[in-house]
């Protein structure tokens, strides 16, 4: 693998900066308010959105609540066993959550019913059904696609009770965050690593951009290091590649 990468090629024939094929299917779970099945090469994630009402978060009384979680199912790889989430899964869920939250993708100010008491609570739960590397990006695309296609039930307050009117409305989306993950293997930087490539990477970095091409979240991972130049060079890559993925998500969700 080192030989191939130092010659600018990868074991699956991709160029160093080439992403795997991205497939997005929407509305696959009828019982969810929004859902998506996203595959990036062999990695596959199902994301479902459930909308309920509940108490707001402390300190954010006038905003709706958004909760993103992720679980790597035991189906996903022979190395995963059922049980409480390990560090990697917790990091995955938190990084994906941060990408959506910090970009302010959803206008949560519009989702308070009685400010300070009852607000919309949006749960986005992700099940990783097959794990073949770069779960960060695959999961984050699934969350974004599911939210883009999500229809909110219209709740009303009558006599201090929440009534589901049965009507639906679209989710207030302000921007589309897209993450791009790069791995450093020796002196080469590759995008969208497979599980095989992740097994021999030195360091990983995930950079999230929003529709205005600003940066909204970053997470470095694995035990290797980057230089400040490597990171600065990756910023432009994350924008260009992020824009490609963003147009694909936009195109798919418009039809769906």
């Amino acid at each position, binding site marked *: 693998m080192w030989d191939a990468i130092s010659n600018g090629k990868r074991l699956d024939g991709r160029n160093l900066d080439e992403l795997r094929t991205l497939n997005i299917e929407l509305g696959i779970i009828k019982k969810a308010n929004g859902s998506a099945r996203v595959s990036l090469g062999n990695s596959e994630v199902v994301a479902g959105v459930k909308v309920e009402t509940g108490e707001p978060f402390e300190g954010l009384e006038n905003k709706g609540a958004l909760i993103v979680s992720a679980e790597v199912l035991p189906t996903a790889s022979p190395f995963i066993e059922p049980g409480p989430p390990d*560090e*990697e899964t917790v*990091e995955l869920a*938190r990084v994906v959550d941060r990408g959506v939250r910090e970009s302010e993708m959803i206008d949560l100010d519009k989702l308070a019913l009685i400010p300070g008491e009852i607000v919309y609570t949006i749960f986005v739960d992700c099940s990783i059904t097959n794990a073949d590397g770069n779960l960060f990006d695959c999961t984050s695309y699934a969350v974004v696609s599911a939210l883009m296609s999500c229809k909110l039930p219209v709740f009303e307050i009558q006599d201090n009770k929440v009534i589901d009117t049965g009507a639906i409305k679209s989710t207030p989306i302000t921007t589309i965050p897209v993450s791009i993950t790069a791995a450093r293997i020796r002196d080469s930087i590759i995008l969208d690593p497979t599980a095989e490539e992740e097994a021999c990477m030195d360091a990983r970095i995930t950079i999230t951009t929003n529709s205005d091409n*600003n940066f909204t979240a970053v997470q*470095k991972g694995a*035990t290797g290091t*980057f230089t400040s130049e490597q990171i600065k060079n990756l910023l432009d890559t994350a924008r260009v590649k992020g824009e490609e993925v963003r147009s694909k998500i936009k195109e798919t969700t418009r039809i769906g």
Partner: protein
Amino acid sequence: MTQTRNLIDARGLRTDGRTPDELREIKIQIGVVKNADGSAFIEFGNNKIIVAVYGPREVHPKHMALPDRCVLRCRYHMSPFSTDTRKNPAPSRREVEISKVMRESLEPALMLEDYPRAAIDVFVEVLQADGGSRCAGITAASVALADAGINMRDIVTACAAGKVDERIVLDINDTEDKEGGADMPVAYMPHLNQITLLQLDGILSSDQFKECLDKALNGCKLIYEIQRSALMKKYFGSESEEIRDEQ
């Protein structure tokens, strides 16, 4: 996060009276936990964090041991009384994530291959939390690892920079973290010139990103001097090499 009030006043000073390029007051004490192989106590603004290092020692459970190198384990934990409202003592998802990124930010500096089949445990306990506790924790942990006599390639030093009122400022505090625009914690090995941790919450343009990263790295270099003088004081009785040479 939407901002509701100005965090930088007309004179260009921040909520705690600092200039945009000023660090909070930092004090590091070494050898504060007697039972530990290495330890450090750091006061970083209002953060009070104690770090104890145990090891290299035998690995339990034994199947975790690696034949060619040492296992590094890291636990970041906040005391229930460390925050404004009581924190549930059970480890939260945030703490699990911070433990992981902390381990990954320290590991590149350690010569783990020198201690095969052993484990090094780093316990980071936040007694009082202010903004930037992960950076303060990493800074103290690498001093504690040096105090434990672990072979190291470099010291890891950590500092955050962020965006407040559309300006890039060094070392953001609790208020600025909660009300400000962006927070970027960075850990760095000053001699090897390598970044070992980089995270970002909040929105930055490309130029702001670069400015923020450079500012955080400068902060790291300042903090490195404090780590160094703390170690010099403990092991050579004086804070600089020059005085030691004269003696």
